C-alpha cells in the first residue's frame, strides 16, 4: 500500500463524515480531540458550531436531527467532555433520535492508568447509547464510522458513540468509503423489510367490524419519515376513524383536523383519554405504551382489540399485551393498508361511526382546554394560543424545555406537519429546548425557531445564548415566567398539601438585561395588553431574542391524570362547569 493513500485517523473521520453527507457538527475542543480539531481547521465542507458546554452540543445535535430527519453529529473531548453528554445521549435513546457522538480518549497506552481527563467512556455510555465503540485500530475506523451511522439511523433510531484514542487519531491507514463497506445484517436491526399481509388483512377486517375504533400514533410515525404521515392522513380520511397522538406524535397528523382528538395521556385531552378508555379497536402506530400515556395499566383501555405497528420488537407486549403486531416499517405497512382497502374496494365510507363520533363530540363539549383570560395577568395558556395564532402562518419550528410550559405548548400549539415539534419526552430533560433550537435553526436557517421555555429550565443551559449570538442564529426564547418550577409546584399543590418545598425560584436574573449582556435582544410582556405586540416584536427581530412573558404564577396544567390513576380518572380545571361535583380545589374525579 502506498503512503499517498494513507490518512491519519482524524482525516479518516472527516472523510467519513463527508461521505455521510454531514454538513454540521456541534462540538467543544479539548486535549484528546486536538488532532481532529486540527483536521477541521484545514477544510471547509463541515461547519463546526462551537457550543458553550457539551450538554449544549448533544441537545443541539438532537434538535438538528429531529428537525431535519438527518443524523445529528457532535464532537467532544475525553473525561468531562463526554460525561457532560451522558444526559443528552440518554435523552436521545429514550426519544429515538439518531445522533453520533465522537469522543476523544486518552492515548491507548494510557487507558486504564487513571490518566488526566480519562474516564471509561464506553462503560459509562453503554446503557445510554444504542451502541458504542472504542476504536483501538485505525484500520477499523472508517468501517466503524459507517456502521455507526447505519445503526443510528435504521430500525428504531438512537444515539451511537465512537470513542477514539488520541494516538489512533494520529495513526495512518487507508480510507474505506461508505459504499465499499459490507454491513453485517444482524448488527443493523432494521426490522422486517416485507409487509405482514396477514396483519394488514386482520386490521382491515377489524376496522370493518368495529364500532369504536381509534388511532393511537406516536413518535415512530415521525421516525418512519414524512411519507408515513402522508399515508396516515390518507388512511384516517378514508376511514373517518378518530386519531390521538402522543407527545412525540404531534404533527404526524394535522392538529386542526376534525378527526384529531389531540394529545392523550397525563395532560392529554379529555376526549382523547376517554376515547382510548372506551374504544373497541385500538390501532397503535409507532407508540410505546409509555406510563405517561397509559395511566394505571390494569384500567388501560379494557375492552379493545389492540393492533401495534412498531419497528422495535421490544416495544411489543412490553407494557401492554396486544392482540396483533407487526415489526415492519410504518410507511410500508400504512401504504399496504391503504392499497389493500383500495384494491379490494372495501367501502369504509358508509361506516361513519356516527354513534362513536356522537359520543366523542359529547366529550368535546366539556372543552377541557378552556381557560378564562382576565384583563391583567397573562394566562400561560393564552400566551401559547396567541403565539400560535401569530406564528402559524410562518414556517415555524417549536422546541421546548420540560414542565408546565411544555404541556401547554403541546395542548395549545397546533402542528400541521411532522418534525416541527422538538421536545424531550421520555427523559424529560430540563435545559433541552434552547440548545435544541440552536440545532433546529442550523438545519433550517430560513425558518422561525422558537423555544417555548420556563424560566427554571432555561437557566439550565443558558450559556448557549452565546452560541446563538456567535452564529447569528435568530432563535426566539419564549419564557413563560411564573418564578416557579411550575410542574413541581403543581404536584406539590395537588399531592403534597401545598407545601412548596424548594420549587420557588428566587433571585432570578433580569432576562431582558441578561439578553443584552449576551448581545441578544430582550423583550418583555407584563400584562395581557402587551402580549401581542411583544410576540410580534420578537418575531420581527432577526437576531436571538429572549421574550420574558410574566404569567399567572399559580396556574395549573389540566386535564391531568394523576400518576397511577386511569384514563377515566382525570382531573379537570376549575373552569369545568358541567360537573356539579367540581367544587373544592377546582378538581374533579371523572
Amino acid at each position, binding site marked *: 500500500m502506498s503512503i499517498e493513500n494513507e490518512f491519519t485517523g482524524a482525516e479518516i473521520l472527516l472523510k467519513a463524515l463527508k461521505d455521510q453527507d454531514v454538513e454540521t457538527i456541534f462540538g467543544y475542543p479539548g486535549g484528546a480531540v486536538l488532532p481532529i480539531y486540527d483536521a477541521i481547521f484545514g477544510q471547509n465542507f463541515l461547519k463546526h458550531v462551537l457550543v458553550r458546554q457539551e450538554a449544549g452540543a448533544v441537545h443541539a445535535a438532537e434538535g438538528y436531527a429531529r428537525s431535519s430527519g438527518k443524523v445529528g453529529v457532535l464532537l467532544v473531548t475525553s473525561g468531562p467532555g463526554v460525561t457532560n453528554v451522558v444526559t443528552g445521549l440518554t435523552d436521545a435513546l429514550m426519544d429515538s433520535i439518531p445522533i453520533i457522538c465522537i469522543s476523544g480518549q486518552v492515548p491507548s497506552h494510557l487507558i486504564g492508568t487513571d490518566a488526566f481527563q480519562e474516564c471509561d467512556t*464506553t*462503560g459509562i455510555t*453503554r*446503557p445510554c447509547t*444504542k*451502541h*458504542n465503540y*472504542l476504536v483501538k485500530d485505525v484500520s477499523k475506523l472508517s468501517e466503524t464510522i459507517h456502521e455507526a451511522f447505519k*445503526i443510528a439511523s435504521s430500525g428504531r433510531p438512537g444515539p451511537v458513540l465512537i470513542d477514539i484514542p488520541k494516538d489512533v487519531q494520529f495513526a495512518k491507514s487507508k480510507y474505506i468509503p461508505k459504499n465499499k463497506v459490507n454491513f453485517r445484517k*444482524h*448488527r443493523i*436491526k432494521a426490522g422486517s423489510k416485507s409487509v405482514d399481509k396477514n396483519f394488514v388483512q386482520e386490521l382491515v377486517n377489524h376496522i370493518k367490524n368495529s364500532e369504536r375504533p381509534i388511532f393511537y400514533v406516536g413518535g415512530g410515525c415521525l421516525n418512519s419519515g414524512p411519507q408515513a404521515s402522508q399515508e396516515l392522513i390518507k388512511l384516517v380520511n378514508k376511514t373517518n376513524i378518530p386519531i390521538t397522538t402522543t407527545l412525540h406524535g404531534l404533527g404526524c397528523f394535522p392538529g386542526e383536523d376534525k378527526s384529531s382528538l389531540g394529545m392523550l395521556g397525563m395532560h392529554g385531552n379529555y376526549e382523547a383519554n376517554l376515547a382510548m378508555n372506551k374504544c373497541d379497536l385500538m390501532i397503535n402506530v409507532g407508540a410505546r405504551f409509555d406510563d405517561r400515556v397509559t395511566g394505571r395499566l390494569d384500567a388501560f383501555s379494557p375492552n379493545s382489540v389492540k393492533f401495534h405497528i412498531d419497528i*422495535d*420488537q*421490544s416495544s*411489543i*407486549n*412490553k407494557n401492554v*399485551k396486544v392482540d396483533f403486531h407487526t415489526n415492519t416499517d410504518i410507511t410500508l405497512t400504512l401504504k399496504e393498508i391503504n392499497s389493500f382497502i383500495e384494491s379490494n374496494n372495501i367501502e369504509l365510507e358508509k361506516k361513519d361511526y356516527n354513534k362513536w363520533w356522537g359520543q366523542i363530540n359529547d366529550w368535546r363539549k366539556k372543552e377541557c382546554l378552556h381557560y378564562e383570560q382576565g384583563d391583567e395577568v397573562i394566562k400561560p395558556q393564552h400566551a401559547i394560543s396567541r403565539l400560535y395564532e401569530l406564528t402559524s402562518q410562518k414556517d415555524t419550528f417549536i422546541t421546548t424545555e420540560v414542565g408546565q410550559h411544555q404541556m401547554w405548548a403541546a395542548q395549545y400549539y397546533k402542528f400541521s406537519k411532522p418534525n416541527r415539534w422538538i421536545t424531550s419526552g421520555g427523559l424529560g430533560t430540563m435545559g433541552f429546548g434552547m440548545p435544541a433550537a440552536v440545532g433546529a435553526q442550523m438545519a433550517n436557517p430560513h425558518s422561525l425557531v422558537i423555544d417555548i421555555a420556563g424560566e427554571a429550565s432555561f437557566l439550565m443551559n443558558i450559556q448557549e445564548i452565546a452560541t446563538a449570538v456567535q452564529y447569528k442564529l435568530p432563535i426566539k426564547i419564549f419564557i413563560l415566567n411564573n418564578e416557579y418550577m411550575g410542574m413541581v409546584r403543581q404536584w406539590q399543590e395537588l399531592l403534597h398539601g401545598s407545601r412548596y418545598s424548594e420549587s420557588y425560584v428566587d433571585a432570578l436574573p433580569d432576562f431582558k438585561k441578561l439578553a443584552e449582556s449576551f448581545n441578544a435582544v430582550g423583550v418583555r410582556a407584563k400584562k395581557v395588553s402587551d402580549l401581542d405586540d411583544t410576540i410580534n416584536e420578537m418575531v420581527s427581530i432577526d437576531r436571538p431574542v429572549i421574550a420574558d412573558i410574566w404569567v399567572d404564577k399559580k396556574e395549573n396544567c389540566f386535564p391531568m391524570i394523576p400518576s397511577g390513576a386511569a384514563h377515566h380518572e382525570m382531573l379537570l380545571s376549575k373552569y369545568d362547569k358541567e360537573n356539579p361535583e367540581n367544587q373544592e380545589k377546582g378538581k374533579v374525579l371523572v
Partner: protein
Amino acid sequence: MSSTSVYPTPINAFKQSKRSVLSVIVDNEPGILARIVGLFSGRGYNIEALNVTVVDIKDNLSRITIETLGEEKVISQIIAQLEKLVPVHNATNLANLSESYEAEICLVKIKFENDEQDQKILNFADIYRSRTVQKRQNIVVYEISGTSERINKFLDDLNTIGGIKVELVRSGPIGLGI
C-alpha cells in the same frame, strides 16, 4: 420443561420452577458480556447462572447461556431486549424449542470424618455416576454432570449425610437445541 438430560437421572421428583435457560449467539467483541450483564441489572432481571465461551473461531462467535427466573412475559421481553443489542445474532429460550438438551458440570470437594460417611458418599456418587477426580485420606473430589436438577438432587442427597463439609463449583447450565 422440554429439555432432558444426556445422563440418566435416578429420581424424577424435580422441583417446579419458573426458570428459563436462554442461549445467545454473539459476536465475540470487547464489551459484549458487559452489555448483556448491564441489560439484566439495568432492567431488573435476574441472572441465576451465566456461561460464556467462544464456539466459532472462524466467524468469531461466542455462545452465552443464561439461566434466569421470570414469568413468560418477562422472558419474552428479555429476549427482545437481548436481540436489540448490536452484537447479538439471536437469543433463544431453550424451553420454547421442541427438543433441546441441557447439561451442567459440577466439581464437589467433600471432607468426611469416618468410614460410615465415606460409605454413604460413595453410595450416592455411584447412584449419580459421578466421576472421582481425586481421593486421599478424608477428602474426595467428584465431578458430576447432567441437568442442573440432577446436580441439585445429588447435592441434596449429600446434605442428608451429617458431619461432612462440602465445597463446590458449578459451571451453570449449558444447552443446545436439536
